[in-house]
């Protein structure tokens, strides 16, 4: 090889290195989160998410009623184990979720920004999301003491009331708050021992799916939290009518949707919670009473003095 040739080859290598710098983008496939796994929708459908200026951001799974059915099966399977854990342990796992979320703040801020939030809005929302998880982690083994009671009765009974999780809760997360809103409805239900299936915001689904990666690394048993993406219009009726769902939390204020929810949920007397207030940063969004919304009160009459 002549000197000139060798020189030409070096130049060629440099060109190739430069080309390597401009890598092809590696885009994440945003999938569903069911039973601790990340499946595509069984319907093989998806919808395109575009940014404010019309750029394509991602293809998001368009979950079907069968995906919902599978998620309920997973949640039902996970429920006894989760409800049977000590409240303290549930708190530990919620705290772990907060830790994992904290470590990935940058990613969440970026995703919120991609979908139209300003830098400072995204930072605030992410920080509040972490704090909200910690808040409910703390309450996980304390709300029982606050809300349980020993009741005065006239007969010779020791009468006491205590809380139990309602069971499988189906949640329609708020449309306008992709991360904080989602966590604000998921955390209290899960802290109280329910297993949940949640439909993420249709227009802001990125943070919800990335949050499922946080869940995946948080010692949370598979199936306790299942996250779907798709359209509320298509899934609402099934969320409300599924006989194996015990509670339904609806976030929004569409009168027609609320009517459907209440009618369909009546079939098996689901507990229905309607959250019309959409200010997820407000004080009242962070309260032990939100845990109470998906709890049942069990009262026991224990004979004494016999």
């Amino acid at each position, binding site marked *: 090889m002549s000197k000139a040739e060798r020189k030409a080859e070096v130049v060629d290598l440099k060109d190739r290195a430069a080309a390597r710098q401009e890598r092809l983008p590696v885009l994440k496939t945003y999938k569903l989160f069911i039973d601790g796994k990340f499946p595509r929708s069984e319907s093989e459908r998806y919808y395109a998410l575009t940014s404010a200026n019309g750029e394509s951001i991602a293809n998001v799974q368009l979950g079907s009623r069968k995906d919902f059915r599978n998620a309920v099966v997973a949640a039902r399977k996970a429920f006894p184990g989760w409800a049977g854990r000590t409240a303290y342990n549930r708190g530990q796992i919620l705290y772990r979720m907060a830790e994992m979320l904290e470590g990935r703040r940058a990613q969440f801020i970026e995703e919120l920004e991609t979908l139209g939030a300003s830098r400072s809005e995204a930072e605030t929302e992410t920080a509040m999301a972490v704090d909200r998880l910690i808040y409910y982690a703390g309450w996980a083994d304390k709300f029982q003491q606050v809300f349980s009671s020993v009741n005065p009765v006239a007969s010779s009974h020791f009468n006491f009331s205590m809380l139990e999780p309602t069971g499988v809760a189906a949640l329609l997360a708020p449309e306008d708050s992709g991360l904080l809103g989602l966590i604000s409805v998921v955390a209290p239900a899960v802290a109280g021992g329910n297993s949940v299936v949640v439909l993420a915001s249709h227009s802001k689904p990125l943070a919800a799916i990335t949050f499922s990666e946080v869940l995946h690394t948080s010692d949370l048993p598979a199936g306790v939290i299942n996250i779907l993406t798709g359209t509320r219009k298509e899934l609402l009726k099934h969320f409300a*009518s*599924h006989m*194996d769902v015990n509670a339904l939390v609806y976030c929004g204020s569409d009168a027609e949707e609320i009517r459907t929810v209440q009618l369909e949920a009546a079939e098996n007397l689901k507990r229905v919670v309607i959250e019309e207030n959409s200010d997820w940063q407000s004080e009242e969004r962070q309260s032990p009473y939100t845990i109470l919304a998906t709890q049942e009160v069990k009262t026991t009459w224990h004979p004494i003095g016999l």
Partner: protein
Amino acid sequence: MPRNNAALAVTLPPQFVPIDEVGIDERVSRFSKRSIKKSSKVQALKLALSMLDLTTLSAHDTPERVRQLCHKAKNLLETMPELPHVGAVCVYGPLVKVAKEVLKGTKIHIAAVSTAFPSGMAPLKTKLIETRQFVADGADEIDMVISRGKFFEGDYDYVADEIAAVKEACGKAHLKVILETGELNTLDNVRRASDIAMHAGADFIKTSTGKVQPAATPQVTLVMLEAIRDFYYATGKKIGMKPAGGIATAKQALHYLVMLRETLGEAWLTPDLFRFGASKLANDILMQLVKEQTGAYQSIDYFSME
């Protein structure tokens, strides 16, 4: 080795049929890809119900439990009186009389497991005594187990003669021969045991006791169905098939029916020639039927356990 009892002489298949395991897997994977929806699904599910052997085989079965099971067999679902009745109830021999009492006047058969079920480790003499007893008590069908130890010893004559002897003890009752495929290790053995059982006089061949894992799998079922087909071509006799254990969902049941239809044809789509041995399957089928009727996914909470 010649046996001294000439009456029990049986004709063993002329040669051993080897099984291609890869081919079986390949074929089996196709059966789960048929799309059966709406009215054809309802029809198939009803057929599956009529083929069901509603089973309770626990060491702690009580007469009351059996009565309850028989009641379920008679009244599958109060809201759907048009449903077909199940094929049979399957119980331990000592409980045949109890079942007979409850099922009097119905066409539901009573199947009793016999021959030192589930191990088969007993002298032939006692196996014959118990079989005669159960038939006298009112069993319409006898489910026997083969002597797996003798099979592995290579003493196929013993296995065949034993089946022939039990068949004789059955009298008018139908004989189902359980191969316990989970212990036979290879599909070659499954095929060999199937051939032995059919030539020795079995009316049905059955995969498993339900006490050994794996129980019924699509693979062993296909091998057994093919054995039945070859036997039919050779002798003109139609032998029945009963996969048992491990079939818990309506979807699985549909896959088995597809396999049956595509291997043996329509002549076998009857409870006289095909049965499912299962305890959880009935409720899953009922849930699917109610789902088709109401449009809402169902919960096991609203169906009677047995």
